[in-house]
């Protein structure tokens, strides 16, 4: 379960989050959409403990996110970053097994990493390559393999299809849907890509001006009446 309550965050006196509330029920996949500058990335950084809100609380699976609880919450989470954020100096398998190497021997961790790579459609021969030797889509898959390596119960996806062609974007969206369902994880995705909403979301939230403007089941999105959400879905600029 992911609960964000009354989050406020400003940068140099410019408010970005203005009392944001969001609940993601256990085992559900919530996709947050909204125009650029609405506060999606800042919200996600607060949710995963990379940024401290000025006020408000983040609760993950019943545990409030604080500086001291973050260390215990991180092993339960998996994050796919926008650019995959693979470590340049490590091979793909070492990236995927980064967390596993603390508990397993190198051969065991490598075997698990290759398993996870296979799960996201990457062949075993990619395991010993460096991130710079892979295409954008392959890097994103490797990032997804790293995110699911320790079977997390909480998953976060930051603009998972940015920079990908429509075919690859579709594949990544389907993979995300599959792995989240397999793990029974609670997932929070931010995106401006409507195809991600269609494939990944159980529930959708529309972020507008630092707060949640509309939320509902993904199936009800097209019938929503909020004018700004309608404008966003239609690809028009909305009133500010």
């Amino acid at each position, binding site marked *: 379960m992911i609960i964000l309550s009354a989050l406020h965050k400003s940068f140099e006196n410019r408010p970005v989050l203005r009392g944001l509330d969001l609940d993601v029920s256990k085992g559900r996949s919530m996709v947050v959409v909204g125009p650029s500058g609405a506060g999606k990335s800042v919200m996600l950084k607060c949710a995963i403990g990379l940024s401290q809100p000025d006020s408000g609380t983040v609760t993950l699976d019943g545990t409030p996110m604080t500086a001291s609880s973050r260390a215990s919450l991180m*092993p339960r989470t998996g994050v796919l970053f926008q*650019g995959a954020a693979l*470590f340049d100096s490590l091979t793909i398998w070492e990236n995927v097994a980064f967390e596993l190497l603390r508990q397993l021997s190198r051969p065991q961790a490598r075997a698990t990493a290759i398993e996870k790579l296979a799960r996201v459609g990457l062949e075993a021969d990619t395991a010993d390559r460096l991130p710079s030797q892979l295409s954008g889509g392959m890097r994103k898959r490797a990032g997804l393999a790293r995110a699911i390596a320790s079977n997390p119960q909480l998953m976060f996806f930051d603009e998972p299809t940015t920079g990908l062609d429509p075919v690859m974007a579709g594949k990544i969206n389907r993979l995300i849907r599959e792995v989240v369902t397999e793990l029974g994880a609670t997932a929070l995705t931010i995106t401006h890509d409507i195809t991600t909403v269609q494939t990944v979301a159980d529930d959708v939230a529309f972020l507008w001006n630092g707060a949640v403007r509309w939320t509902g089941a993904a199936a009800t999105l097209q019938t929503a009446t909020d004018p700004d959400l309608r404008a966003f879905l239609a690809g028009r600029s909305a009133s500010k």
Partner: protein
Amino acid sequence: MTFALRVLAALGRMVLRALRGVGAITIFALSTLRHMVTPPFYPRAFLAALMQIGWLSLPVIGLTALFTGGALVLQIYAGGARFDAQAVVPQIVAIGMVRELGPVLVGLMVAARVTTSIAAEIATMKVTEQIDALVTLSTEPMKYLTAPRVLAGTLTVPVLVAVGDTIGIMGGYGVATNSLGFNAAAYLRATVGFIEPLDIVSSLTKGAVFGFIATLMGCFYGLRASRGAMGVGLATKGAVEYAAVLILAANFALTSAFFAQ
């Protein structure tokens, strides 16, 4: 009056900014020391840093020391000839290399080669969210990125200094015996007989301190890089500038501590 106040205010802001910088670097250094002695440790990252800072710096350190030693002999010989003191060339080259030129040149070369590389690498990691990824993978960036590099720098730069001192002296020896007519055995005897244990201790201590400064500044500026390619450039520039200045300031302080009468 208003103008004078404005100047004073600007000066005050500058001093405050400088003090904030000193404070931030001090806190960063103390935090690095804490992470160096508390688990978890990352031996692979440490070995990679040893390789990068120590082994791969050897060629450039060796060449720099060799040419500097050769040039030093020529300068001291020419200067000494003015008052008929050519005989002290081996002693002055030895003391100059071991006490001053060896450590300072190695420190500055490490700053040029290693500080920039560390700052650029970590800053790039920052702008591509790799540092954020480390955090989400339950890894403290200071422990994984900073502690191994700073420890490796502190341990390897004294070795580089020892190598640089030796090669510098041998560069001088080569020039002195081949071009200036010095007797090879007498030159070596004069060199070895003149250097005292304190000279070597000061040289290696300077190496350790310069290694600490060079790697620390690379990590400090890398981790503080702002977003974008410009952030990487600024981090690299700031790291090498401040590392060089701090190395020279530390050199003065250490020379005073060891040798001031």
